[in-house]
């Protein structure tokens, strides 16, 4: 082996590595997000092109996987290194936690100029602002308490949409009789949680949801209503197919699309799957609020939190925040993503039936005070508590905990995580 050559090679490679180190240009935004699939990426491209027109280059930092958990790890590394990205896709309590670290930028001037206070729902503002200052630009509002039904299967079962849990059970029995999987579900903690929170809302109503989930009241978490919730979960479990464990949500959606399953409880992002399969709302599928949750909306909103990057980069950052709240982008993005705009002053004409219904529900809930954060997506509890609750929910659903044990464990887990 020629040693001289190797050492030269090593030196060369090291040099190369040095040169490859990045330098940030002034008019550039680096965006950390986990929207890596085709549709989402296409939607983001709208924003990217928008910014490019204003002379801002877009440095993409996609980190997919684990519903953003890999992205959060990357973010920690970047912030710890003192080199945060310009904007980061964040959810719920994570926004507060990061703001608390004192790394957020201030968007107050921009928000005042563009009047964000008036058009963004207060329930959402609670997360977009930290100690009264705007730190994030909300992109969209998802709602999680939806039920997606295969129209053909529904028609076969009588065509009547269920409006409460009992009717849901009847319908699921009918699906089962058709020989299809009644309820398509993917057995991962956040999906289990999504289903659970809808059942909580349906069983106990908005006030109980606030008490049990938003306030994590120990009595509510172990009371009779909660027992009913867990019993319902056990009941719903019997309508799953045997392979639900660990399945991605979109595969479950595909089962409903193909008619192999009758229904799926899932957030409105699931609509994207239907649309991409060239299915029409109303004719091929039906979107309804999860039975018993009409009038309330559990929300989950993607926001771009702006990190304090200082200097010239701040200008690009402000431009990006403004572009996110631009109504044209809001429409373009949300029609693709299946969500509804984060601002309430946007016309619904470009949206389909489900979208229109979503926007109407949102406005209604926002005024009624029944627009509440989703637990599974980090808008109800900080991460520690959320994950502790999901632990119990998941283990119960997988038969590792009995209902009684779950009722005992739930307040304990919450207390331990606080």
């Amino acid at each position, binding site marked *: 082996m020629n040693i001289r050559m190797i050492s030269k090679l090593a030196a060369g490679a090291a040099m190369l590595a*040095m040169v490859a180190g990045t330098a940030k240009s002034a008019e550039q935004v680096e965006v950390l997000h986990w929207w890596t699939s*085709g549709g*989402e990426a296409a939607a983001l491209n709208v924003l990217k092109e928008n910014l490019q027109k204003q002379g801002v280059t877009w440095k993409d930092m996609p980190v997919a996987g684990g519903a953003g958990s890999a992205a959060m790890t990357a973010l920690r590394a970047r912030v710890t290194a003192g080199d945060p990205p310009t904007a980061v896709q964040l959810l719920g309590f994570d926004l507060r936690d990061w703001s608390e670290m004192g790394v957020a930028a201030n968007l107050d001037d921009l928000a005042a100029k563009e009047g964000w206070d008036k058009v963004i729902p207060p329930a959402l503002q609670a997360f977009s602002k930290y100690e009264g200052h705007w730190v994030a630009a909300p992109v969209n509002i998802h709602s999680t308490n939806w039920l997606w039904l295969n129209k053909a299967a529904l028609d076969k079962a009588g065509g009547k949409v269920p409006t409460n849990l009992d009717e849901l059970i009847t319908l699921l029995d009918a699906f089962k009789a058709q020989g299809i999987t009644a309820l398509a579900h993917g057995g991962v903690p956040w999906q289990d949680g999504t289903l659970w929170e809808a059942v909580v809302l349906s069983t106990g109503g908005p006030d109980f949801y606030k008490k049990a989930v938003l306030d994590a009241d120990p009595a509510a978490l172990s009371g009779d209503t909660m027992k009913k919730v867990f019993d319902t979960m056990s009941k719903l479990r019997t309508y799953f197919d045997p392979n639900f464990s660990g399945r991605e949500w979109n595969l479950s959606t595909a089962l409903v699309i193909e008619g192999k399953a009758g229904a799926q409880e899932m957030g409105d992002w699931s609509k994207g*799957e239907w649309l*991409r399969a060239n299915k029409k709302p109303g004719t091929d599928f039906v979107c309804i609020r999860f039975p018993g949750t009409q009038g309330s909306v559990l929300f989950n909103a993607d926001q771009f939190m702006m990190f304090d990057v200082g200097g010239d980069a701040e200008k690009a950052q402000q431009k990006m925040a403004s572009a996110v709240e631009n109504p044209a982008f809001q429409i373009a993005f949300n029609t693709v993503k299946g969500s509804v705009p984060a601002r309430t002053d946007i016309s619904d004409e470009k949206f389909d039936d489900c979208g229109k219904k979503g926007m109407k529900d949102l406005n209604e809930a926002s005024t009624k005070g029944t627009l509440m954060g989703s637990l599974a997506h980090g808008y109800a509890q900080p991460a520690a508590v959320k994950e502790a609750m999901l632990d119990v929910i998941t283990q119960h659903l997988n038969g590792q905990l009995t209902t009684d044990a779950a009722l005992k464990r739930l307040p304990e887990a919450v207390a331990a995580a606080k």
Partner: protein
Amino acid sequence: MSAAHETVSPGSARAARYVIYAALIFLALVYLLPLYVMLSTSLKSLDEIRGGDMLALPGDPSIAAWVKAWGEACIGVSCVGIKGYFWNSIKMVVPAVVISTLLGALNGYVLTKWRFPGHKLVFGMMLFACFIPFQAVLIPMARLLGAAGLSNSTAGLVFVHVVYGLGFTTLFFRNYYEAFPDELVKAAMIDGAGFFKIFWRILLPSSGPIIVVTVIYQFTNIWNDFLFGVSFSSGEASPMTVALNNLVSSSTGVKEYNVDMAAAVFAALPTLFVYIVAGRYFVRGLMAGAVKG
């Protein structure tokens, strides 16, 4: 010796060999299954994947998924496939492997041929570095990289891989040089060779087997690393595994399994190549001393 003498007729010997070959072939097939699934899926169409049997051969093989994975698949907002990330990984792996191997060789050399009081403690402490869980070092590492201005750069990533590869490379070379005759070093000393001359001219040229083992080990580990890659690099500078993860585990949208599988095979090609080509030398290198570690 308790065992009785066993007479082996030619017939039963042949039967025994059939059994051995049968067992090996069966095991080989089992080991190949996941690779087979990946390859056959990457050649199928999406419809065939959804409807068909996972283990069935592709009915109408097509390399469309491969073309897409290489040049068209979307990773984030840009849809240019994984080809660019391939080069990213190479830029990271080559210097990291070369530097960590070289340092390991030097360390092994000092720890066996230039011993000093406490050399065992030093070696033991370095060896322990192999066992630290990487998740536990992310945050402080990020802090130090940031302070050194290496955050989010390939140089930083190379550094991290060198640091956490040192324990292994030192172990390999130390065990190999342990068996290397001291007399050769003495002879070279008398001949007038200095510390580095002895290393370059005498030890390193005789280290072929252990260099192969070390390079294979380091190359595979660094190429396959995801955790450091995702934490200490970003966007278009990410290594292959991060890009692959973005491609494969996108949270929404239609899953193109054939493209995913093709991309996964692409990502695995270099390490597969290294193992297949150098497999023989790998066993030989292990024989040459690494096993005793």
